C-alpha cells in the first residue's frame, strides 16, 4: 500500500445524523476506516445508524439532550477507542469548546483548529479580519451595538445613517438567518435591534448584534477552501447559492454562472487571504455577496464542511471528506487538490444541488414532519442523491428538515438543468410535503435558466397559490373519477388498507398505500379515448 492510501484513522465517530453522517461514513468505508454512529432515542432505527459499524445511543430526541451533548460524545469516543471525530455541519461543528474537548481527549477533531473556530464564529471578528487584509466588506459597524438607554438609541441611529438603509441587523454569533432583521425605515431600527438581540440570545446564547448595509439584488457566491497544517491554503472553486428563503439556501451550483476567469481569480484570491489570516487548516468556505455590477463584499467564513460541498466535488472530481480526513491526520494538501486549485478559475464541469426538505413550499416553507410513505430516488447519468431517509420512516420534528440532496452534474449548465428536470420527474414522494414542487418550478423560470440570480428571487417570484390550486383541482378530478367509477383509475384504487395507522394517526406503514397510476396506464388510456372520440 502506498502511504497516501493507508487509512488516516482506524476508527472514526460522526457526531451528527441524517444524510451528512451517511456521506462521511461512505468516505470512511472507501478508506477502510471503521465507523461509529451516535443517535438519539428517536433515531435508533435511522438509516445513518445502520450505515455505521457501531452505534451508540446518546440521549432523548431534543438535540440539546443528544446531538449537542459534546461531553457524552467525547465519552463514547474514549470508550470505543475512536481516534477521530467528524462533526458534519450544524450541531457541534463550529463550537470551539467541543473541538478543544475532543483534542484534549487525545482524539483528532476533523475540522479547523479550536482557535480558528472561535475567531470565525464571531462574525464581527471576521469582518475585522477581512478589513485587515484589504478584502472589501459591506458598510457597517465593527463593534457590537447595544440598546440600553436613549443615549445608545441615538448612537445607533447615527451609526445607521452612516451605514445607509436598507440595513440588516445581524447577530455576531448568528447563522441560518436567525437573529437577523431587515430594516428599511429608520423608525423601525430600535425594534429590530431589540428583536434581533432577543432572538440571538435565545438561539446562540449571545445578544451581540451589529449593523450591515443590505445589498439589494445581490448574488450569494462562496469559495471552497482547503488548508493544511503547514499553512498552505488553496481555493478549489466557487459556488452560487443565491436561491434562498429566510436566508437559508435551497439550491447551489458550481461554478457560479456568468463569472469570467478573471472574476474567479479575484474572488478566490480574496478568500485565500482571509483563510491565511485566520490560520485555516482543513476545510472552510468564505461567503461573499456579488452585486449586479460585479462588486464583491465579504460576508463570513463557515469553518466546516458545507451542506453543499457536493457540487464542488462534482465540478472538481474531488472527494472533499476524504481530503478532510487526510488533512486532519496531518498530511499536506494532496496533488489532486493542488491540481484542482490550479484549474479553479477555468472549470470544465458544471453541477447543481437541489435541497429536498420536509417543508411546504405553499405555506412559506413551514416544516412538515411526519411519515414518509413514499420515497423513490432518481438515478441515471449525472445524478447523485445524498440521502438520509427511506420509505416508511417517520421524519422527526426535532431536527433540520433536510431529507436529501439531489446533485446533478454535466458538461455545461444547460445539460445540468436538463438532467435535473429529468431527475426531479423521477423523484417520487408521498405522506410528507416536500420542496419538490418548488424545484420543478424553479428549473422552468426564465431568470433562473438565464443565470440571472439574486438572493431575493424566491421572495419576489415564488407564487405557489395558483400552482397548488391547479394540482388540487387535478387531484380532485382524479379522485372523483376514481371513487365514482367513471375512470379506468377506479379499477385500480383499492379499498383503504387495514394497515394500522401510525402513532400520530398518520397513514400506516408502506403497505397502507397502493400505487394506481403508472405512466403506461395513463398513456394507454389516452390512446383509447382518442381512438373512440
Amino acid at each position, binding site marked *: 500500500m502506498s502511504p497516501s492510501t493507508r487509512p488516516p484513522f482506524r476508527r472514526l465517530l460522526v457526531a451528527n445524523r441524517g444524510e451528512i453522517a451517511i456521506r462521511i461514513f461512505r468516505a470512511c468505508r472507501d478508506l477502510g476506516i471503521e465507523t461509529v454512529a451516535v443517535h438519539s432515542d428517536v433515531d435508533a432505527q435511522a438509516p445513518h445508524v445502520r450505515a455505521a459499524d457501531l452505534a451508540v445511543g446518546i440521549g432523548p430526541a431534543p438535540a440539546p439532550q443528544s446531538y449537542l451533548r459534546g461531553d457524552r460524545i467525547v465519552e463514547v469516543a474514549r470508550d470505543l477507542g475512536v481516534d477521530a471525530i467528524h462533526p458534519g455541519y450544524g450541531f457541534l461543528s463550529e463550537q470551539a469548546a467541543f473541538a478543544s474537548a475532543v483534542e484534549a481527549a487525545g482524539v483528532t477533531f476533523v475540522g479547523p483548529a479550536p482557535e480558528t473556530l472561535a475567531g470565525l464564529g464571531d462574525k464581527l471578528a471576521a469582518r475585522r479580519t477581512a478589513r485587515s487584509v484589504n478584502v472589501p466588506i459591506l458598510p457597517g459597524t465593527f463593534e457590537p451595538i447595544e440598546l440600553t438607554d436613549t443615549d445608545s438609541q441615538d448612537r445607533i441611529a447615527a451609526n445607521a445613517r452612516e451605514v445607509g438603509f436598507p440595513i440588516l441587523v445581524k447577530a455576531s454569533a448568528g447563522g441560518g438567518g436567525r437573529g437577523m432583521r431587515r430594516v428599511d425605515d429608520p423608525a423601525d431600527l430600535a425594534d429590530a435591534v431589540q428583536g434581533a438581540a432577543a432572538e440571538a440570545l435565545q438561539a446562540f446564547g449571545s445578544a451581540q448584534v451589529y449593523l450591515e448595509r443590505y445589498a439589494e439584488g445581490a448574488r450569494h457566491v462562496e469559495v471552497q477552501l482547503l488548508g493544511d497544517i503547514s499553512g498552505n491554503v488553496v481555493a478549489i472553486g466557487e459556488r452560487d447559492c443565491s436561491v434562498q428563503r429566510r436566508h437559508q439556501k435551497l439550491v447551489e451550483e458550481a461554478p457560479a454562472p456568468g463569472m469570467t476567469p478573471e472574476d474567479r481569480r479575484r474572488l478566490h484570491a480574496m478568500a485565500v487571504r482571509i483563510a491565511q489570516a485566520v490560520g485555516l487548516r482543513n476545510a472552510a468556505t468564505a461567503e461573499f455577496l456579488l452585486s449586479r455590477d460585479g462588486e464583491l463584499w465579504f460576508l463570513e467564513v463557515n469553518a466546516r464542511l458545507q451542506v453543499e460541498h457536493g457540487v464542488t466535488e462534482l465540478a472538481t472530481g474531488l472527494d472533499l471528506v476524504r481530503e478532510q480526513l487526510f488533512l486532519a491526520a496531518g498530511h499536506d494538501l494532496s496533488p489532486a487538490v493542488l491540481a484542482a486549485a490550479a484549474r479553479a478559475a477555468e472549470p470544465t464541469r458544471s453541477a447543481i444541488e437541489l435541497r429536498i426538505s420536509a417543508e411546504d413550499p405553499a*405555506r412559506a416553507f413551514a416544516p412538515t414532519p411526519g411519515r414518509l410513505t413514499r420515497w423513490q430516488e432518481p438515478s441515471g447519468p449525472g445524478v447523485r442523491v445524498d440521502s438520509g431517509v427511506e420509505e416508511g420512516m417517520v421524519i422527526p*420534528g426535532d431536527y433540520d428538515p433536510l431529507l436529501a440532496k439531489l446533485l446533478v452534474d454535466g458538461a455545461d449548465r444547460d445539460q445540468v438543468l436538463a438532467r435535473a428536470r429529468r431527475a426531479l420527474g423521477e423523484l417520487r414522494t408521498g405522506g410528507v410535503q416536500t420542496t419538490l414542487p418548488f424545484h420543478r418550478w424553479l428549473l422552468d423560470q426564465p431568470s433562473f435558466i438565464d443565470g440571472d440570480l439574486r438572493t431575493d428571487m424566491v421572495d419576489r417570484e415564488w407564487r405557489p397559490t395558483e400552482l397548488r*390550486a391547479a394540482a388540487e383541482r*387535478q*387531484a*380532485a378530478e382524479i379522485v372523483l373519477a376514481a371513487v*365514482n367509477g367513471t375512470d379506468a383509475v377506479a379499477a385500480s384504487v383499492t379499498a383503504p388498507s387495514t394497515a394500522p395507522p401510525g402513532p400520530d394517526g398518520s397513514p400506516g406503514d408502506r403497505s397502507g398505500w397502493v400505487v394506481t*397510476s*403508472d405512466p403506461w396506464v395513463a398513456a394507454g388510456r389516452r390512446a383509447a379515448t382518442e381512438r373512440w372520440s
Partner: protein
Amino acid sequence: MSRNDDRRWRLTSIGADEDRVIDLDGSPADAGAASPDPALAPADAQAASLDATPHPDDATGARHTPEVRSLAPIGDDLAAGRRRLEVTIDGWVITITAEPAARAELRERALRAGGGAGHGGPQSIKARIPGRVARVWAAAGDVVAAGDRLLSVEAMKMENEIRSPVAGTVLAIHVAVDDRVELGAELAVVE
C-alpha cells in the same frame, strides 16, 4: 360515462391540512402565506362539498404522472363511510376525503335543521405539526381578537405562531412551554 347514483361520492375536503376546502371551479380558499390561515378554523365550519367539473387532461400543465394512494382511515372515517386518499401531483402531496353523496346530503340537511351551525360554539385549535411548545401568550379567560397570538410550536428549528381563528374568550390552554405535542393534539379552545 355512466354515473350510477348508488356509487356517487363527493369530496368533503382537499388539501394538505385536510380541513381546507377549495371550489373546483374557483380559486383556493387559501390565498397564500400572507392571508389569515383558514386551516386554523375547525373542519366543520369550513366543510363544503364539491362537485367536479372535468378539465381537459392538459389544462393543469402537469407532466408528472399523478399517483393515488388510499390512506388508512382515522377517527370515525370507517363508521361515517368516508374514504381518504392521497394524490401526488408534481410533488404536491394532496389529501382528499370522499364521502358517499347520499350521506353528505343527509349531513347537510341535519346541519341546516340545526340552525346554521358552524358559527359560535367553542372552537378547538389543534396542532398542525408535532413539536415542542415554545411560547404561550394566552391564558384561560383572556379575551382575544381574531388573529391574536395564542402560543407557538417549534419544529425543525422553526417557530410556528398559532393565532386565534375567532374573536372571543380563551376557554382553555391545554399545553405549557416545553411540552411536546403530537399532530392533531388539542392545544386550546376559544369561544
